[in-house]
Protein backbone atom coordinates (compact mmCIF):
# COMPACT_ATOMS: atom_id res chain seq x y z
CA UNK A 1 0.00 0.00 0.00
CA UNK A 2 1.20 3.46 -0.82
CA UNK A 3 1.22 5.87 2.04
CA UNK A 4 -0.65 9.10 1.33
CA UNK A 5 1.24 12.34 1.76
CA UNK A 6 0.15 15.92 2.15
CA UNK A 7 1.28 16.46 -1.45
CA UNK A 8 -1.13 13.86 -2.78
CA UNK A 9 -3.98 15.20 -4.92
CA UNK A 10 -5.73 11.83 -5.05
CA UNK A 11 -5.78 9.17 -2.38
CA UNK A 12 -7.71 5.92 -2.32
CA UNK A 13 -7.88 3.24 0.34
CA UNK A 14 -9.34 -0.19 -0.38
CA UNK A 15 -11.37 1.26 -3.24
CA UNK A 16 -13.49 -1.49 -4.75
CA UNK A 17 -16.14 -1.45 -7.45
CA UNK A 18 -18.09 -4.40 -8.81
CA UNK A 19 -20.63 -4.63 -11.60
CA UNK A 20 -22.53 -7.78 -10.76
CA UNK A 21 -19.92 -10.50 -10.51
CA UNK A 22 -17.42 -8.50 -12.53
CA UNK A 23 -14.79 -6.77 -10.39
CA UNK A 24 -13.97 -3.45 -12.04
CA UNK A 25 -11.62 -2.25 -9.29
CA UNK A 26 -10.22 -4.37 -6.51
CA UNK A 27 -9.08 -2.86 -3.23
CA UNK A 28 -7.15 -0.02 -4.77
CA UNK A 29 -4.69 1.76 -2.46
CA UNK A 30 -3.22 4.72 -4.23
CA UNK A 31 -1.58 8.08 -3.55
CA UNK A 32 -1.13 10.31 -6.58
CA UNK A 33 1.20 13.31 -6.27
CA UNK A 34 0.67 16.75 -7.80
CA UNK A 35 2.07 16.72 -11.33
CA UNK A 36 1.42 15.05 -14.64
CA UNK A 37 0.22 11.55 -13.85
CA UNK A 38 -0.47 8.81 -16.36
CA UNK A 39 -3.18 6.23 -15.73
CA UNK A 40 -2.23 3.35 -17.94
CA UNK A 41 -4.00 0.12 -18.68
CA UNK A 42 -5.63 -1.93 -21.40
CA UNK A 43 -9.30 -1.55 -22.23
CA UNK A 44 -11.24 -2.94 -19.28
CA UNK A 45 -8.39 -2.41 -16.84
CA UNK A 46 -10.53 -0.14 -14.67
CA UNK A 47 -9.34 3.32 -15.78
CA UNK A 48 -12.75 4.77 -16.60
CA UNK A 49 -14.29 3.18 -13.49
CA UNK A 50 -11.61 4.84 -11.39
CA UNK A 51 -12.28 8.23 -13.02
CA UNK A 52 -16.03 7.85 -12.41
CA UNK A 53 -15.41 7.00 -8.76
CA UNK A 54 -13.04 9.93 -8.36
CA UNK A 55 -15.64 12.30 -9.85
CA UNK A 56 -18.27 10.96 -7.46
CA UNK A 57 -20.41 9.74 -10.36
CA UNK A 58 -20.41 6.19 -9.09
CA UNK A 59 -20.49 4.80 -5.55
CA UNK A 60 -17.73 2.43 -4.49
CA UNK A 61 -18.73 -0.94 -3.06
CA UNK A 62 -15.97 -0.59 -0.50
CA UNK A 63 -13.17 1.77 0.40
CA UNK A 64 -12.75 5.52 0.18
CA UNK A 65 -11.32 8.07 -2.22
CA UNK A 66 -10.36 11.71 -1.77
CA UNK A 67 -9.58 14.27 -4.45
CA UNK A 68 -7.90 17.52 -3.40
CA UNK A 69 -8.78 16.60 0.18
CA UNK A 70 -12.52 16.12 -0.48
CA UNK A 71 -14.19 12.76 0.04
CA UNK A 72 -15.68 11.75 -3.31
CA UNK A 73 -18.71 10.13 -1.68
CA UNK A 74 -19.67 12.83 0.83
CA UNK A 75 -18.44 15.91 -1.06
CA UNK A 76 -18.94 14.91 -4.68
CA UNK A 77 -20.18 18.38 -5.61
CA UNK A 78 -17.11 20.03 -4.04
CA UNK A 79 -14.87 17.59 -5.87
CA UNK A 80 -16.52 18.36 -9.21
CA UNK A 81 -16.27 22.10 -8.57
CA UNK A 82 -12.48 21.75 -8.39
CA UNK A 83 -11.90 19.08 -11.02
CA UNK A 84 -11.93 19.47 -14.79
CA UNK A 85 -12.95 16.47 -16.86
CA UNK A 86 -12.32 15.85 -20.53
CA UNK A 87 -14.24 12.70 -21.55
CA UNK A 88 -13.02 10.32 -24.21
CA UNK A 89 -16.16 10.38 -26.30
CA UNK A 90 -17.51 13.09 -28.57
CA UNK A 91 -19.64 15.15 -26.20
CA UNK A 92 -20.11 18.64 -27.64
CA UNK A 93 -23.36 20.18 -28.87
CA UNK A 94 -23.06 20.79 -32.59
CA UNK A 95 -25.19 23.87 -33.03
CA UNK A 96 -23.57 26.23 -30.56
CA UNK A 97 -20.40 28.28 -30.63
CA UNK A 98 -17.30 27.28 -28.70
CA UNK A 99 -17.37 30.54 -26.69
CA UNK A 100 -21.00 30.07 -25.72
CA UNK A 101 -20.60 26.47 -24.66
CA UNK A 102 -17.37 26.90 -22.71
CA UNK A 103 -18.84 29.95 -20.94
CA UNK A 104 -21.93 27.92 -20.07
CA UNK A 105 -19.76 25.15 -18.64
CA UNK A 106 -17.97 27.72 -16.46
CA UNK A 107 -21.33 28.86 -15.09
CA UNK A 108 -22.22 25.24 -14.44
CA UNK A 109 -19.20 25.13 -12.14
CA UNK A 110 -20.52 28.08 -10.16
CA UNK A 111 -18.75 31.02 -11.82
CA UNK A 112 -20.75 34.25 -12.14
CA UNK A 113 -22.00 34.84 -15.70
CA UNK A 114 -19.68 37.74 -16.55
CA UNK A 115 -16.60 36.00 -15.17
CA UNK A 116 -17.61 32.81 -17.02
CA UNK A 117 -17.69 34.62 -20.39
CA UNK A 118 -14.36 36.29 -19.74
CA UNK A 119 -12.63 33.08 -18.71
CA UNK A 120 -14.14 31.22 -21.68
CA UNK A 121 -12.51 33.73 -24.05
CA UNK A 122 -9.18 33.46 -22.21
CA UNK A 123 -9.07 29.69 -22.06
CA UNK A 124 -10.11 29.27 -25.70
CA UNK A 125 -7.24 31.57 -26.58
CA UNK A 126 -4.92 29.41 -24.49
CA UNK A 127 -5.89 26.24 -26.34
CA UNK A 128 -5.45 27.93 -29.71
CA UNK A 129 -9.07 28.64 -30.66
CA UNK A 130 -9.11 32.41 -30.44
CA UNK A 131 -10.24 33.11 -34.00
CA UNK A 132 -12.65 30.19 -34.13
CA UNK A 133 -14.44 30.70 -30.84
CA UNK A 134 -17.53 32.28 -32.41
CA UNK A 135 -17.95 29.52 -34.99
CA UNK A 136 -20.47 26.71 -34.55
CA UNK A 137 -18.85 23.55 -33.19
CA UNK A 138 -20.35 21.42 -35.97
CA UNK A 139 -17.84 22.95 -38.37
CA UNK A 140 -14.84 21.98 -36.24
CA UNK A 141 -12.27 19.29 -37.03
CA UNK A 142 -11.63 16.47 -34.54
CA UNK A 143 -8.55 18.27 -33.26
CA UNK A 144 -10.48 21.50 -32.69
CA UNK A 145 -13.23 19.62 -30.87
CA UNK A 146 -10.61 18.06 -28.61
CA UNK A 147 -9.39 21.59 -27.83
CA UNK A 148 -12.92 22.71 -26.95
CA UNK A 149 -13.25 19.70 -24.65
CA UNK A 150 -9.96 20.64 -23.04
CA UNK A 151 -11.05 24.28 -22.72
CA UNK A 152 -14.28 23.37 -20.91
CA UNK A 153 -12.23 21.23 -18.53
CA UNK A 154 -9.95 24.18 -17.71
CA UNK A 155 -12.34 27.13 -17.75
CA UNK A 156 -13.39 27.06 -14.08
CA UNK A 157 -9.81 27.02 -12.77
CA UNK A 158 -9.65 23.41 -11.61
CA UNK A 159 -7.02 22.10 -9.22
CA UNK A 160 -6.68 18.95 -11.25
CA UNK A 161 -7.84 17.94 -14.73
CA UNK A 162 -8.82 14.38 -15.66
CA UNK A 163 -8.16 13.67 -19.34
CA UNK A 164 -9.69 10.45 -20.66
CA UNK A 165 -7.84 9.32 -23.80
CA UNK A 166 -7.14 12.91 -24.92
CA UNK A 167 -5.48 11.88 -28.19
CA UNK A 168 -8.26 9.56 -29.25
CA UNK A 169 -9.13 9.91 -32.94
CA UNK A 170 -6.38 12.40 -33.71
CA UNK A 171 -3.98 12.05 -36.63
CA UNK A 172 -0.23 11.98 -35.78
CA UNK A 173 0.12 15.75 -36.11
CA UNK A 174 -3.00 16.44 -34.08
CA UNK A 175 -1.83 13.99 -31.45
CA UNK A 176 1.55 15.68 -31.27
CA UNK A 177 -0.10 19.10 -30.86
CA UNK A 178 -2.49 17.86 -28.19
CA UNK A 179 0.32 16.29 -26.16
CA UNK A 180 2.35 19.46 -26.51
CA UNK A 181 -0.63 21.48 -25.29
CA UNK A 182 -1.21 19.18 -22.30
CA UNK A 183 2.45 19.35 -21.41
CA UNK A 184 2.38 23.15 -21.52
CA UNK A 185 -0.79 23.35 -19.45
CA UNK A 186 0.89 21.31 -16.75
CA UNK A 187 4.28 23.00 -16.89
CA UNK A 188 3.21 26.51 -17.83
CA UNK A 189 0.01 26.84 -15.83
CA UNK A 190 0.84 24.52 -12.95
CA UNK A 191 -2.39 22.54 -13.18
CA UNK A 192 -2.15 18.92 -12.07
CA UNK A 193 -3.27 16.46 -14.73
CA UNK A 194 -4.33 12.83 -14.67
CA UNK A 195 -4.25 11.30 -18.14
CA UNK A 196 -6.01 8.04 -18.70
CA UNK A 197 -4.63 6.32 -21.77
CA UNK A 198 -3.73 2.98 -23.23
CA UNK A 199 -1.01 4.52 -25.40
CA UNK A 200 2.38 4.13 -23.75
CA UNK A 201 4.04 6.85 -25.81
CA UNK A 202 1.51 9.47 -24.71
CA UNK A 203 2.09 8.74 -21.05
CA UNK A 204 5.85 8.54 -21.42
CA UNK A 205 6.03 11.82 -23.26
CA UNK A 206 3.95 13.93 -20.88
CA UNK A 207 3.89 12.31 -17.47
CA UNK A 208 6.33 12.22 -14.59
CA UNK A 209 4.38 9.62 -12.60
CA UNK A 210 2.59 6.51 -13.79
CA UNK A 211 -0.18 4.34 -12.38
CA UNK A 212 -0.67 1.01 -14.13
CA UNK A 213 -3.92 -0.92 -13.73
CA UNK A 214 -4.68 -4.39 -14.96
CA UNK A 215 -8.02 -6.17 -14.50
CA UNK A 216 -8.97 -3.71 -11.77
CA UNK A 217 -5.81 -4.24 -9.77
CA UNK A 218 -3.01 -1.78 -9.14
CA UNK A 219 0.15 -3.11 -10.75
CA UNK A 220 2.43 -0.10 -10.35
CA UNK A 221 2.38 3.48 -9.07
CA UNK A 222 5.70 5.29 -9.19
CA UNK A 223 7.60 8.18 -10.78
CA UNK A 224 8.83 7.61 -14.30
CA UNK A 225 12.62 7.51 -14.56
CA UNK A 226 12.81 6.10 -11.05
CA UNK A 227 16.37 5.23 -9.97
CA UNK A 228 15.03 1.84 -8.86
CA UNK A 229 14.48 1.03 -12.53
CA UNK A 230 18.15 1.45 -13.40
CA UNK A 231 18.95 -1.03 -16.19
CA UNK A 232 22.69 -1.07 -15.48
CA UNK A 233 23.30 0.60 -18.84
CA UNK A 234 24.50 4.07 -19.79
CA UNK A 235 22.25 6.13 -22.03
CA UNK A 236 24.17 8.24 -24.55
CA UNK A 237 22.22 10.80 -26.57
CA UNK A 238 24.01 12.74 -29.30
CA UNK A 239 22.85 15.34 -31.79
CA UNK A 240 23.44 13.21 -34.90
CA UNK A 241 23.37 9.66 -36.20
CA UNK A 242 24.64 7.40 -33.42
CA UNK A 243 25.77 4.51 -35.66
CA UNK A 244 29.34 5.83 -36.04
CA UNK A 245 29.75 6.31 -32.31
CA UNK A 246 28.27 2.86 -31.63
CA UNK A 247 30.74 1.25 -34.04
CA UNK A 248 33.73 3.02 -32.48
CA UNK A 249 32.66 2.09 -28.95
CA UNK A 250 32.25 -1.53 -30.01
CA UNK A 251 35.76 -1.45 -31.45
CA UNK A 252 36.89 -0.23 -28.04
CA UNK A 253 35.40 -3.38 -26.52
CA UNK A 254 32.15 -2.07 -25.05
CA UNK A 255 28.75 -3.79 -25.29
CA UNK A 256 26.67 -1.31 -27.30
CA UNK A 257 23.01 -1.23 -28.53
CA UNK A 258 21.50 1.30 -30.92
CA UNK A 259 18.20 2.73 -29.64
CA UNK A 260 15.38 4.36 -31.60
CA UNK A 261 16.09 7.87 -30.36
CA UNK A 262 13.91 10.56 -31.87
CA UNK A 263 13.78 12.61 -35.07
CA UNK A 264 16.68 14.83 -34.02
CA UNK A 265 18.90 12.91 -31.63
CA UNK A 266 20.60 9.53 -31.83
CA UNK A 267 20.66 7.25 -28.81
CA UNK A 268 22.73 4.27 -27.79
CA UNK A 269 22.80 2.12 -24.67
CA UNK A 270 26.20 1.03 -23.39
CA UNK A 271 26.74 -1.69 -20.80
CA UNK A 272 29.80 -0.52 -18.90
CA UNK A 273 32.42 -2.78 -17.39
CA UNK A 274 33.62 -0.03 -15.05
CA UNK A 275 33.04 3.67 -14.28
CA UNK A 276 35.81 4.44 -16.75
CA UNK A 277 33.29 3.79 -19.52
CA UNK A 278 31.85 7.32 -18.93
CA UNK A 279 35.28 8.85 -19.63
CA UNK A 280 35.77 6.67 -22.68
CA UNK A 281 32.39 7.68 -24.15
CA UNK A 282 32.99 11.36 -23.46
CA UNK A 283 36.42 11.24 -25.11
CA UNK A 284 35.09 9.32 -28.11
CA UNK A 285 32.28 11.84 -28.66
CA UNK A 286 34.81 14.69 -28.51
CA UNK A 287 37.14 12.91 -30.89
CA UNK A 288 34.34 12.42 -33.42
CA UNK A 289 33.24 16.03 -32.92
CA UNK A 290 29.65 15.04 -32.06
CA UNK A 291 27.25 17.04 -29.87
CA UNK A 292 26.72 15.24 -26.56
CA UNK A 293 23.18 15.86 -25.31
CA UNK A 294 22.96 13.39 -22.47
CA UNK A 295 25.16 10.87 -20.66
CA UNK A 296 23.47 9.15 -17.72
CA UNK A 297 22.38 5.81 -16.27
CA UNK A 298 19.50 4.44 -18.34
CA UNK A 299 16.17 3.77 -16.60
CA UNK A 300 13.63 1.27 -17.84
CA UNK A 301 11.30 2.64 -20.49
CA UNK A 302 7.59 2.65 -19.76
CA UNK A 303 7.21 -0.21 -22.21
CA UNK A 304 9.72 -2.27 -20.24
CA UNK A 305 7.97 -1.37 -16.99
CA UNK A 306 4.61 -2.33 -18.43
CA UNK A 307 5.93 -5.67 -19.68
CA UNK A 308 7.55 -6.36 -16.33
CA UNK A 309 4.35 -5.67 -14.36
CA UNK A 310 1.57 -6.73 -16.73
CA UNK A 311 3.21 -9.18 -19.12
CA UNK A 312 4.78 -9.18 -22.56
CA UNK A 313 1.90 -11.10 -24.12
CA UNK A 314 -0.19 -7.98 -23.61
CA UNK A 315 2.02 -5.85 -25.78
CA UNK A 316 1.64 -5.25 -29.47
CA UNK A 317 2.87 -2.55 -31.78
CA UNK A 318 0.79 0.13 -33.42
CA UNK A 319 1.26 2.64 -36.17
CA UNK A 320 0.66 5.70 -34.05
CA UNK A 321 2.09 4.60 -30.75
CA UNK A 322 2.60 1.55 -28.56
CA UNK A 323 -0.61 0.34 -26.95
CA UNK A 324 -1.34 -1.44 -23.71
CA UNK A 325 -3.97 -3.87 -24.93
Amino acid at each position, binding site marked *: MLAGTSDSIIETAGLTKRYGRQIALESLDLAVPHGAVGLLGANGAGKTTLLRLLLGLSRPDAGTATVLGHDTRRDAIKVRERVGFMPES*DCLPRDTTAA*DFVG*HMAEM*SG*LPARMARQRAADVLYHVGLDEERYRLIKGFSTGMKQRVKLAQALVHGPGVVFLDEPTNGLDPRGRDEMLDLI*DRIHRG*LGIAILISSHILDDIERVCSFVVILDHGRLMLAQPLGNSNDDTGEILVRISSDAALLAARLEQAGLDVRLLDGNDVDGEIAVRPESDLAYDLIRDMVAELDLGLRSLRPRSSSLEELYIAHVGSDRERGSGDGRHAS
Partner: protein
Amino acid sequence: MRVDTVSEVSAHDHAAPPTSERYGEVFDRGYEQYEGMRLGRRHAVWALTRYSMKRAMGIKKGWTSKIVPFLIYAAAALTALIPVGIESFVGEEIIQYNEFFSTLYLLEGIFVATIAPELLCGDRRENVLSLYFSRAITRLDYLIAKIGAVALLTLTISFVPAFVLWLGRQLLAAAPLASMWDNLPDLGRLLLSGTLIAIYLGTGGLMISSFTGRKSIAVAIIIFGFFTLESLVGLLQFALPEGNVARYVSLLSPTTVIGGLVIGLFQPAEPWLDVPWWICALAMATVIAFACAIMYRRYVPSN
Protein backbone atom coordinates in the same frame (compact mmCIF):
# COMPACT_ATOMS: atom_id res chain seq x y z
CA MET B 1 10.89 16.23 -26.03
CA ARG B 2 11.07 20.02 -26.24
CA VAL B 3 10.27 21.67 -22.96
CA ASP B 4 9.52 25.37 -22.68
CA THR B 5 9.91 26.92 -19.31
CA VAL B 6 7.36 29.25 -17.81
CA SER B 7 9.56 32.23 -18.59
CA GLU B 8 9.77 31.18 -22.24
CA VAL B 9 6.03 30.87 -22.39
CA SER B 10 5.61 34.30 -20.86
CA ALA B 11 8.01 35.76 -23.38
CA HIS B 12 5.63 35.12 -26.29
CA ASP B 13 4.15 38.11 -27.99
CA HIS B 14 1.07 39.01 -25.95
CA ALA B 15 -0.88 40.44 -28.84
CA ALA B 16 -0.21 37.78 -31.47
CA PRO B 17 -2.97 35.17 -31.81
CA PRO B 18 -1.90 31.59 -32.42
CA THR B 19 -1.52 30.74 -36.08
CA SER B 20 -2.10 27.31 -37.53
CA GLU B 21 1.63 26.69 -37.39
CA ARG B 22 1.73 27.49 -33.69
CA TYR B 23 -1.42 25.70 -32.64
CA GLY B 24 -1.36 24.62 -29.05
CA GLU B 25 1.16 27.10 -27.78
CA VAL B 26 0.32 28.76 -24.51
CA PHE B 27 0.47 32.51 -24.53
CA ASP B 28 0.64 34.55 -21.41
CA ARG B 29 -2.56 36.54 -21.63
CA GLY B 30 -2.95 36.66 -17.90
CA TYR B 31 -4.31 33.15 -17.30
CA GLU B 32 -4.61 32.63 -13.60
CA GLN B 33 -6.18 29.97 -11.48
CA TYR B 34 -9.69 31.09 -10.60
CA GLU B 35 -9.89 31.90 -6.92
CA GLY B 36 -13.05 34.03 -7.04
CA MET B 37 -16.62 33.34 -6.04
CA ARG B 38 -18.20 29.95 -6.72
CA LEU B 39 -21.94 30.35 -6.48
CA GLY B 40 -22.85 26.70 -5.94
CA ARG B 41 -25.56 24.37 -7.14
CA ARG B 42 -28.47 26.79 -7.16
CA HIS B 43 -26.58 29.07 -9.54
CA ALA B 44 -25.60 26.11 -11.74
CA VAL B 45 -29.21 24.90 -11.93
CA TRP B 46 -30.44 28.37 -12.86
CA ALA B 47 -27.64 28.68 -15.45
CA LEU B 48 -28.73 25.38 -17.00
CA THR B 49 -32.38 26.48 -16.97
CA ARG B 50 -31.58 29.74 -18.77
CA TYR B 51 -29.26 28.05 -21.26
CA SER B 52 -31.84 25.34 -22.01
CA MET B 53 -34.57 27.94 -22.57
CA LYS B 54 -32.36 29.86 -24.99
CA ARG B 55 -31.50 26.73 -26.94
CA ALA B 56 -35.12 25.58 -27.11
CA MET B 57 -36.09 28.97 -28.53
CA GLY B 58 -33.29 28.77 -31.10
CA ILE B 59 -31.45 31.77 -29.66
CA LYS B 60 -27.82 31.84 -30.85
CA LYS B 61 -28.68 29.03 -33.28
CA GLY B 62 -29.47 29.09 -36.98
CA TRP B 63 -32.61 30.93 -38.15
CA THR B 64 -34.40 27.67 -38.96
CA SER B 65 -34.42 26.78 -35.24
CA LYS B 66 -36.33 29.98 -34.46
CA ILE B 67 -39.15 29.60 -37.01
CA VAL B 68 -41.59 27.30 -35.19
CA PRO B 69 -41.39 28.83 -31.66
CA PHE B 70 -41.73 32.38 -32.95
CA LEU B 71 -44.61 31.49 -35.30
CA ILE B 72 -46.40 30.03 -32.28
CA TYR B 73 -45.68 33.19 -30.29
CA ALA B 74 -47.08 35.28 -33.12
CA ALA B 75 -50.23 33.14 -33.21
CA ALA B 76 -50.62 33.34 -29.41
CA ALA B 77 -50.19 37.12 -29.50
CA LEU B 78 -52.89 37.43 -32.17
CA THR B 79 -55.19 35.14 -30.16
CA ALA B 80 -54.98 37.62 -27.28
CA LEU B 81 -54.88 40.90 -29.20
CA ILE B 82 -57.76 40.22 -31.62
CA PRO B 83 -60.42 39.83 -28.85
CA VAL B 84 -59.07 42.93 -27.08
CA GLY B 85 -59.28 44.88 -30.33
CA ILE B 86 -62.82 43.71 -31.10
CA GLU B 87 -63.97 44.34 -27.51
CA SER B 88 -62.66 47.90 -27.72
CA PHE B 89 -65.18 48.46 -30.51
CA VAL B 90 -68.18 46.43 -29.38
CA GLY B 91 -67.82 47.36 -25.72
CA GLU B 92 -68.50 43.91 -24.28
CA GLU B 93 -66.60 40.65 -23.70
CA ILE B 94 -66.74 38.40 -26.75
CA ILE B 95 -64.92 35.41 -25.22
CA GLN B 96 -64.85 33.84 -21.77
CA TYR B 97 -61.52 33.02 -20.15
CA ASN B 98 -62.28 29.29 -20.24
CA GLU B 99 -63.05 29.54 -23.97
CA PHE B 100 -59.86 31.50 -24.45
CA PHE B 101 -57.85 28.67 -22.83
CA SER B 102 -59.55 26.21 -25.19
CA THR B 103 -58.39 28.22 -28.22
CA LEU B 104 -54.84 28.36 -26.82
CA TYR B 105 -54.72 24.66 -26.03
CA LEU B 106 -53.71 23.56 -29.53
CA LEU B 107 -50.91 26.15 -29.63
CA GLU B 108 -49.68 25.00 -26.21
CA GLY B 109 -49.57 21.40 -27.42
CA ILE B 110 -47.61 22.24 -30.58
CA PHE B 111 -45.28 24.46 -28.54
CA VAL B 112 -44.50 21.69 -26.04
CA ALA B 113 -44.02 19.16 -28.86
CA THR B 114 -41.46 21.58 -30.31
CA ILE B 115 -39.49 22.57 -27.23
CA ALA B 116 -39.51 19.47 -25.00
CA PRO B 117 -37.42 17.36 -27.41
CA GLU B 118 -35.05 20.33 -27.86
CA LEU B 119 -34.48 20.39 -24.11
CA LEU B 120 -33.60 16.72 -23.57
CA CYS B 121 -32.88 14.87 -26.80
CA GLY B 122 -29.85 16.92 -27.88
CA ASP B 123 -28.03 16.43 -24.56
CA ARG B 124 -28.60 12.69 -24.75
CA ARG B 125 -27.81 12.24 -28.43
CA GLU B 126 -24.73 14.45 -28.44
CA ASN B 127 -23.54 12.92 -25.16
CA VAL B 128 -23.37 16.31 -23.44
CA LEU B 129 -24.75 14.60 -20.34
CA SER B 130 -21.28 13.27 -19.54
CA LEU B 131 -20.06 16.87 -19.28
CA TYR B 132 -23.05 18.09 -17.26
CA PHE B 133 -22.78 15.28 -14.75
CA SER B 134 -19.09 16.00 -14.23
CA ARG B 135 -19.96 19.56 -13.10
CA ALA B 136 -21.14 20.80 -9.72
CA ILE B 137 -24.70 19.49 -10.03
CA THR B 138 -26.50 16.23 -9.34
CA ARG B 139 -28.59 14.33 -11.86
CA LEU B 140 -31.69 15.45 -10.00
CA ASP B 141 -30.54 19.07 -10.37
CA TYR B 142 -30.29 18.48 -14.11
CA LEU B 143 -33.89 17.26 -14.22
CA ILE B 144 -35.11 20.16 -12.07
CA ALA B 145 -33.43 22.62 -14.46
CA LYS B 146 -35.04 20.98 -17.49
CA ILE B 147 -38.50 20.84 -15.89
CA GLY B 148 -38.09 24.47 -14.85
CA ALA B 149 -37.12 25.42 -18.41
CA VAL B 150 -40.06 23.64 -20.05
CA ALA B 151 -42.53 24.99 -17.47
CA LEU B 152 -41.31 28.60 -17.76
CA LEU B 153 -41.37 28.50 -21.54
CA THR B 154 -44.82 26.89 -21.70
CA LEU B 155 -46.04 29.47 -19.20
CA THR B 156 -45.26 32.16 -21.78
CA ILE B 157 -47.92 30.53 -23.99
CA SER B 158 -50.38 29.33 -21.36
CA PHE B 159 -50.41 32.46 -19.16
CA VAL B 160 -48.93 35.50 -20.93
CA PRO B 161 -51.60 35.72 -23.70
CA ALA B 162 -54.33 35.29 -21.07
CA PHE B 163 -52.67 38.02 -19.01
CA VAL B 164 -52.59 40.30 -22.08
CA LEU B 165 -56.32 39.68 -22.57
CA TRP B 166 -57.02 40.41 -18.89
CA LEU B 167 -54.85 43.56 -18.93
CA GLY B 168 -56.43 44.79 -22.17
CA ARG B 169 -59.90 44.45 -20.66
CA GLN B 170 -58.93 46.39 -17.54
CA LEU B 171 -57.34 49.15 -19.61
CA LEU B 172 -60.53 49.43 -21.67
CA ALA B 173 -62.61 49.89 -18.52
CA ALA B 174 -63.74 53.37 -17.49
CA ALA B 175 -61.63 53.18 -14.29
CA PRO B 176 -58.70 50.87 -15.14
CA LEU B 177 -57.09 50.77 -11.68
CA ALA B 178 -60.35 50.04 -9.90
CA SER B 179 -61.17 47.43 -12.54
CA MET B 180 -57.80 45.75 -12.03
CA TRP B 181 -58.40 45.57 -8.31
CA ASP B 182 -61.92 44.22 -8.77
CA ASN B 183 -60.76 41.56 -11.25
CA LEU B 184 -57.67 40.48 -9.34
CA PRO B 185 -59.26 37.09 -8.51
CA ASP B 186 -59.57 36.43 -12.26
CA LEU B 187 -55.84 37.10 -12.62
CA GLY B 188 -55.15 34.62 -9.82
CA ARG B 189 -57.25 31.98 -11.58
CA LEU B 190 -55.48 32.69 -14.88
CA LEU B 191 -52.10 32.29 -13.17
CA LEU B 192 -53.14 29.06 -11.46
CA SER B 193 -54.57 27.60 -14.68
CA GLY B 194 -51.61 28.73 -16.77
CA THR B 195 -49.06 27.34 -14.32
CA LEU B 196 -50.80 23.99 -13.93
CA ILE B 197 -51.26 23.61 -17.69
CA ALA B 198 -47.60 24.57 -18.31
CA ILE B 199 -46.23 22.02 -15.84
CA TYR B 200 -48.75 19.36 -16.91
CA LEU B 201 -48.07 19.58 -20.64
CA GLY B 202 -44.36 20.33 -20.15
CA THR B 203 -43.54 17.35 -17.93
CA GLY B 204 -45.59 15.07 -20.21
CA GLY B 205 -43.60 16.24 -23.22
CA LEU B 206 -40.30 15.90 -21.35
CA MET B 207 -41.15 12.39 -20.16
CA ILE B 208 -41.72 11.23 -23.73
CA SER B 209 -38.55 13.00 -24.89
CA SER B 210 -36.51 11.24 -22.18
CA PHE B 211 -36.95 7.94 -24.04
CA THR B 212 -35.16 8.92 -27.24
CA GLY B 213 -32.20 10.92 -28.41
CA ARG B 214 -33.87 11.83 -31.69
CA LYS B 215 -35.88 15.04 -31.68
CA SER B 216 -37.99 14.15 -34.71
CA ILE B 217 -39.05 10.84 -33.15
CA ALA B 218 -39.94 12.57 -29.87
CA VAL B 219 -42.04 15.18 -31.71
CA ALA B 220 -43.84 12.44 -33.63
CA ILE B 221 -44.51 10.39 -30.47
CA ILE B 222 -45.84 13.42 -28.58
CA ILE B 223 -48.28 14.31 -31.37
CA PHE B 224 -49.24 10.69 -32.14
CA GLY B 225 -49.56 9.93 -28.40
CA PHE B 226 -51.85 12.90 -27.89
CA PHE B 227 -54.25 11.92 -30.66
CA THR B 228 -54.15 8.24 -29.66
CA LEU B 229 -54.95 9.07 -26.04
CA GLU B 230 -57.78 11.39 -26.98
CA SER B 231 -59.26 8.78 -29.36
CA LEU B 232 -58.93 6.00 -26.79
CA VAL B 233 -60.64 8.02 -24.07
CA GLY B 234 -63.40 8.98 -26.54
CA LEU B 235 -63.91 5.31 -27.41
CA LEU B 236 -64.04 4.26 -23.75
CA GLN B 237 -66.52 6.98 -22.91
CA PHE B 238 -68.69 5.82 -25.81
CA ALA B 239 -68.46 2.18 -24.74
CA LEU B 240 -68.92 2.65 -21.00
CA PRO B 241 -72.34 3.34 -19.48
CA GLU B 242 -72.85 6.84 -18.17
CA GLY B 243 -71.72 7.23 -14.58
CA ASN B 244 -68.72 7.75 -12.37
CA VAL B 245 -66.44 5.31 -14.24
CA ALA B 246 -66.95 7.04 -17.59
CA ARG B 247 -66.58 10.43 -15.94
CA TYR B 248 -63.27 9.56 -14.32
CA VAL B 249 -61.92 7.77 -17.41
CA SER B 250 -62.29 11.11 -19.16
CA LEU B 251 -59.64 12.48 -16.78
CA LEU B 252 -57.07 10.59 -18.86
CA SER B 253 -57.72 13.01 -21.71
CA PRO B 254 -55.60 16.20 -21.57
CA THR B 255 -58.35 18.13 -23.35
CA THR B 256 -60.94 17.13 -20.77
CA VAL B 257 -58.67 17.76 -17.80
CA ILE B 258 -57.62 21.21 -18.96
CA GLY B 259 -61.20 22.07 -20.00
CA GLY B 260 -62.53 20.80 -16.68
CA LEU B 261 -59.96 22.85 -14.76
CA VAL B 262 -60.62 26.18 -16.45
CA ILE B 263 -64.42 25.77 -16.64
CA GLY B 264 -64.48 24.73 -13.01
CA LEU B 265 -62.35 27.72 -12.00
CA PHE B 266 -64.21 30.37 -14.01
CA GLN B 267 -67.76 28.90 -13.92
CA PRO B 268 -67.85 26.91 -10.66
CA ALA B 269 -71.65 26.70 -10.86
CA GLU B 270 -71.53 24.65 -14.07
CA PRO B 271 -68.54 22.25 -13.87
CA TRP B 272 -67.78 20.26 -17.01
CA LEU B 273 -68.92 16.62 -16.80
CA ASP B 274 -69.88 17.27 -13.17
CA VAL B 275 -66.22 16.99 -12.15
CA PRO B 276 -65.05 19.68 -9.71
CA TRP B 277 -62.01 21.70 -10.79
CA TRP B 278 -59.90 20.41 -7.95
CA ILE B 279 -60.37 16.82 -9.16
CA CYS B 280 -59.03 17.94 -12.54
CA ALA B 281 -56.12 19.67 -10.76
CA LEU B 282 -55.47 16.46 -8.82
CA ALA B 283 -55.49 14.45 -12.06
CA MET B 284 -52.98 16.89 -13.52
CA ALA B 285 -50.80 16.65 -10.39
CA THR B 286 -50.89 12.85 -10.66
CA VAL B 287 -49.71 12.96 -14.27
CA ILE B 288 -46.98 15.46 -13.33
CA ALA B 289 -45.80 13.21 -10.48
CA PHE B 290 -45.88 10.14 -12.75
CA ALA B 291 -43.86 11.92 -15.46
CA CYS B 292 -41.31 13.15 -12.90
CA ALA B 293 -40.98 9.65 -11.43
CA ILE B 294 -40.36 8.14 -14.88
CA MET B 295 -37.74 10.78 -15.67
CA TYR B 296 -36.12 10.23 -12.28
CA ARG B 297 -35.78 6.54 -13.06
CA ARG B 298 -34.38 7.35 -16.50
CA TYR B 299 -31.79 9.85 -15.29
CA VAL B 300 -30.94 8.96 -11.69
CA PRO B 301 -29.63 5.40 -11.48
CA SER B 302 -29.87 3.48 -8.23
CA ASN B 303 -26.06 3.62 -8.04
